[in-house]
């Protein structure tokens, strides 16, 4: 109910009709999204790269992976460079944040979003989405850590559930990809989603 009201408000705020498609939930496709950012603080975080991949039924459409680098307005913090491996020089060829997010919205369309701690990614994205289209991302969100918690809680109601990404990867027996980038993490998230879906928690 609340969600419906929220979506109504979002639709009302939408300034650009081209993005009406975001409100039309796709019947059987989702999009797994992951962003690399300059900081883990939403307030100061700037986008460095965005990866996304569509999930159609049991298939991850890796052949149409969305994978763009973003040129940030400020230099990335040194400590984060070591995490995402994106040096300032790698990013100089990137798109402007507005351009990158615009393309991402076209890619996502009405598909529900899938991600691991998606809330953070969506919050960072919204910093750019709102000025662009007038409202925040209206798409339904599938939070993997929450689904995983439900799955584990069903198995062992009393135990502590470890929600570290590596734990999900190990427990759900998803192969580790050698490359740590936004697109790769989006694919990993998509694989985690399919594994959870198989267990009835999609």
């Amino acid at each position, binding site marked *: 109910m609340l969600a419906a009201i929220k979506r109504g408000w979002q639709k009302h705020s939408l300034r650009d009709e081209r993005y009406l498609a975001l409100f039309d939930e796709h019947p059987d496709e989702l999009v797994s999204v992951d962003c690399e950012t300059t900081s883990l603080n939403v307030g100061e975080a700037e986008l460095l790269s965005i990866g996304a991949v569509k999930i159609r039924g*049991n*298939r*991850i*459409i*890796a*052949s149409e992976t969305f994978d763009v680098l973003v040129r940030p307005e400020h230099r990335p913090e040194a400590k984060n460079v070591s995490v995402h491996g994106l040096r300032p020089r790698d990013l100089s060829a990137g798109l402007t944040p507005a351009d990158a997010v615009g393309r991402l919205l076209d890619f996502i369309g009405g598909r529900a979003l899938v991600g691991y701690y998606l809330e953070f990614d969506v919050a960072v994205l919204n910093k750019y989405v709102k000025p662009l289209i007038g409202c925040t991302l209206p798409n339904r969100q599938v939070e993997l850590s929450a689904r995983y918690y439900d799955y584990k809680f069903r198995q062992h109601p009393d135990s502590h559930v470890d929600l570290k990404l590596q734990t999900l990867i190990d427990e759900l*027996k*998803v*192969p580790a*990809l*050698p*490359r740590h980038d936004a*697109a*790769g993490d989006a*694919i990993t998230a*998509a*694989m985690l989603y*399919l*594994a959870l879906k*198989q267990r009835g928690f999609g």
Partner: protein
Amino acid sequence: MTRFDFNHPPFDQLEPAERQTLEAQADIVFFGDDETILGPGDTVDALWIVLKGIVREMAGDEVIGVYRKDDVFDARALVTGATAHRFVVHEEALLLSLPRAALIALTERNLRFGAYFFASVSEKFGVLSERSGSRELQTLLTATVGDVELRTPVCVEGSLSLREAARTMKENKVKSLLVRDGERLGIYTTTDFREVIIEGIPYDTPLASLANFRLASVSRDDFLFNALLTMTRSNIRRLVVLEGGEAVGILSQVDVLSYFSNHSHLIAQRIARATTLAELAGAARQITRLTSILNSHGVKPVQLARLVQTLNAQLFERTWALVAPGELVANSCLVVMGSEGRGEQILKTDQDNALIIRDGFPADGVEAACQAFSAALEQFGYPPCPGGIMVSNAAWRFTESALAGQLRQWTWQPAGDALMNLAIFVDAEAVTGDAGLLASAKARLRELIADDAAFYARFAAAIEQFDTPLGMFAQLLTREADGEAVLDLKKGGIFPIVHGTRALALENGVHACNTHERLLELARLGVLADEMVEEVGEALAFLLGIKLESGLAALEDGQVPGNLIAPERLSAPERDLLKDAFAVVKRYKQQLRHHFKLGSF
């Protein structure tokens, strides 16, 4: 850099850019337990790589293949566009789906990659050996005579005098001359001058009267290995190299030996000169060492086996000469049988020998010689045959007439022991003594079965004795938990090929004992299709190779080489080929079943 690991066959044949192109078109697909990925009637629009999980390939209810991480399926289906098998998820699987169109495009650009998909199985084996060949030293056994730097022959007329000949040799710094005498071609070497001096032959004698015209020759395209065999067999040091019937060079023993760090020839000489069993034991140990070295140099097991067979035959001959009185040697025929007879025993696994004695030859002393022979072989490292198939066992020493009676008895009801004994005897090769004794026994056998069509079916039926080899892969699924799953190469693959071919050879009067030679002969007679012969031959060579590898490893650990291998210890491409080899065995068995109408028993 690609996101996924493409460092396994066939993708390791791709250039980095090609891998990236391919990956960019790949999707990831998730399947739950027991879901069918691909089945009969489905359009094959992709090749699948297992990223995680286990997939089983089913023919009806039978598991005929298991695919794990980095395994690829199904190349054959991709090419033909359809499959008769069902690929079912055994354990929750994540697969990479590579679109057919992209792969076909790559196969056209990258021929080595394309070979994996379009080549028949036998060619696929070739790709693997080529890959290992590029790493490993090329040795002479894979080289041809033409690869050796040949000495250009100095050719002279037979009318040339001895003195002129000596001068020509000195001028040209050669130790041999080719002598042309009309149509004949001969050779005259520096060694021959010894006779000239000893016999006081006048120096103006024409060469033609002294040259040796019984020349052993070898074709320029022939394997160096064959040249070495010829030298070893005939105990000569030089061969004339022919190309298009013309002498183009002389290949000397030294040339070959300089190629050959392992000196098989020296082993042969050591055997020939041995005067005690202890000396022979030393030579026998050298054979095993040679095997190991040549194998590590990438010499193919088929060629290796033939070389070992030649050396072994000399070893046996010499041993027999040392332990048996000359009269006995002349009036009997020592034969090797089974894998030794076929030239397929690379490591010493069995004695498998017998003695045929001329009718009427006195029996005294035979027993003692035979006991000494078997004991000597045991000392050389040949384990006593568990079935007692060796001359020390009275049951394997026959007079001619006793053998004829035995053969009649075996052919009467070819089942169980009689069948196995018969099969072993069919592969008999004479080692020393009167080979005619064996030849007439074999002729007797052919007479016995000539008009007995049912015999062949009963004989061939033994191929059904062991489980169909592909089924053994099912064990990999279940036996993993309680330790390492093992596969019996002999029961699973080698025996059906060898015995099936043996049955066909017997039926079609093929005299050769070696399985590869039998197959070629059967192809020539039109009994088997060329393609089948090639595939079966390659599959056998591959299985023997795997067996040799594991046998050498066992010897290194101080264990007895056997037929069991742990597929898990094989490399991924080897496992892949093992599956292919077993698939060939299965097809071969089906054809044999049909040929001998085995279903009707």
